[in-house]
């Protein structure tokens, strides 16, 4: 189950950050930080989707989870940047 959540989170991040798809796919298998973030992203984005469907809307909850999702995306980008710096691309 958690592995499935990690996988779903990774796919969602690949959709959200298309420029990093290749790198995410490679890192997803070996980077423990990225796995944790994928899992967190799956939970947070699902929660955000649920909140956006509620009536009436809980704006503070939506803002909070929007912020969390945005922060996770930034954290994932920084992991990719650090990784690119560490292992220069063979191309």
């Amino acid at each position, binding site marked *: 189950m958690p592995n499935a959540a990690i996988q779903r989170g990774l796919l969602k991040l690949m959709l959200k950050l298309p420029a990093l798809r290749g790198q995410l796919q490679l890192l997803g298998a070996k980077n*423990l*930080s990225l796995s944790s973030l994928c899992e967190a992203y799956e939970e*947070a984005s699902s929660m955000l989707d649920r909140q956006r469907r509620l009536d009436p809307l809980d704006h503070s*909850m939506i803002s909070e989870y929007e*912020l969390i999702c945005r922060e996770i995306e930034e*954290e994932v980008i*920084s*992991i990719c940047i650090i990784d690119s710096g560490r292992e220069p691309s063979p191309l």
Partner: protein
Amino acid sequence: MEARNAGLAAQCGVAECDARAALDRVLADSQFHATERHRKLLRYLVDEFFAGRSGQVKAYTIAIDVFGRPASFDPATDPIVRVEASRLRAALTQYYETAGEKERLRIELPKGNYVPHFATSGLARGPSETADATETGSGQEEPTDVASAPVRRPRRPFGVIAAAATGLAAMAGAFYLSVVERLPWQPVLSAKPTIVIDVPAGSGTGGEEQRKAGDYLIHALSQFSAIRTLAPAPGVDVASVTGWVASAPQVKLQGSKEYRLSVAYSADVKEHQVSWQVVDAQSNEALRAGTVKADIDNGDAQAVQEKLLARLARSLAGEEGVIVSLEAARQLLTPSIGYGCVLLADVAASRIDPEGLASAHACLEQSVTYQAADPDVLASLAMVLVATGEASASPTVAARAVKLADKAVALAPQSSQSYIAQMQARFVTGDTEAAFLSGRRAAALNPLDDAIPARLGLLLFVSGQYSEGVSLARVAEVGCEYLHRDAALTLALEDYRNGKYREALKRARQLANPADTAVNLLRIAAAGQLGLTREATSALDGLHWNKVGSTRSIERELAARGYAPELIALLNEGLGKAGVRLAGLY
């Protein structure tokens, strides 16, 4: 249970002092890319571990204690704890893989529970490895059954603890100063401060007096939107102003500094007296204390009590009040976005400090991107757009200020600050009557805040409604320890308008602030009327209007800021006598 927790410590082979030092190092390292939330969570988990309470740490307790969720929190519907624990785990892993690579003692957060693991170099195990042993299998992290009894802690001399605490505070200060700029995606968010009223229970008549005083003080403080007011016991309605409903147990708001206000009320036939003390709820440090007294002259004890407590509330939570000053000082030491920017803006606006306003503006813009629905931030941004002169220079900016203020009003219809922002934004767009309506609503929402009639009075006065403006300035003047700048300027302008130039000049001198153009203009004009050319010249030297990108003359600027033509003409007359032409001033 105790054996098991102690066993864990022994298994780690790590002394508590070493573990705590490792925690301090990671928290103080700017390379540890974790949000304030994660830092709080990590510290909490380590504290609970060494207090022997790891077994009691569940998603629910973390949500309440660390994330400020209400008592009704349900981990099944709100995954906040699992999400943040995963992010913390990622931040720790990332840190020890990069910057903290050489760290001898590593703190890990294995998956499946909320018990930290301390691994010495070479013995470190990956989180996934631990996960295999403790995974709950449900995808929802709940701790496995871990011991909860206290672990025996080594005795340490107090001096060592104090030195470590001082060092930690210094490191934390340095970290905070760097965090806002260096980690743009991980801002430190702050919220408005919380005051918990603490009125010691008494018995008999004195006890009843105390209780009544406590109730009225909660009512008075809750009208000020600069703070969150919590009653000492559940069941007291503070929602009327803050929009937050008290429930048991009291909920801590993330990023909100908590203060405890202890109040002792005493009354005799001659006078009423209230002694107060503001205490830092975390450190128990007494920050400010004082005594306020009032004589019973008309025999109405209740009126005296209410007046006394209203004065206390104003001096605590009003503009430049004790709590606001403490928070502003804290913001300077540990910059944050969110409510911290609101404080910066308040301080800069009260000092008419153009540089401060510019940095508060940038801070608020950043906050809005993270907290698009925070009424305090929106209202403050609207007020800053007006105060910097941007709104009067550009109709687009003015429209934005109105929109921001309208949103603040929609989000916090019980907050007087939202209506003040709406008043100022509407006034600058020329909707004066609508602006005055907003101002009156603000005054009705918080009749205790003397800054509201002062601000409204000045706008009424400069727009030509002199008598109403003056009467509001006098309202602000009565029962006040210091006179609000807007009320003082209104009264000075009134003196000038009535030909009382000497009085007007005296008031303008008292308000001396080189950056305050309106006051300086009045000073030049009054000096001109009195033939004091030297004073007029020196005031002229310091004159510059706080405006952004505008090349309009000060005369046109005054008109754009809503000054009535008659008032501008009167000022021009005095300036002419001082040898200055208003239309020629830029």
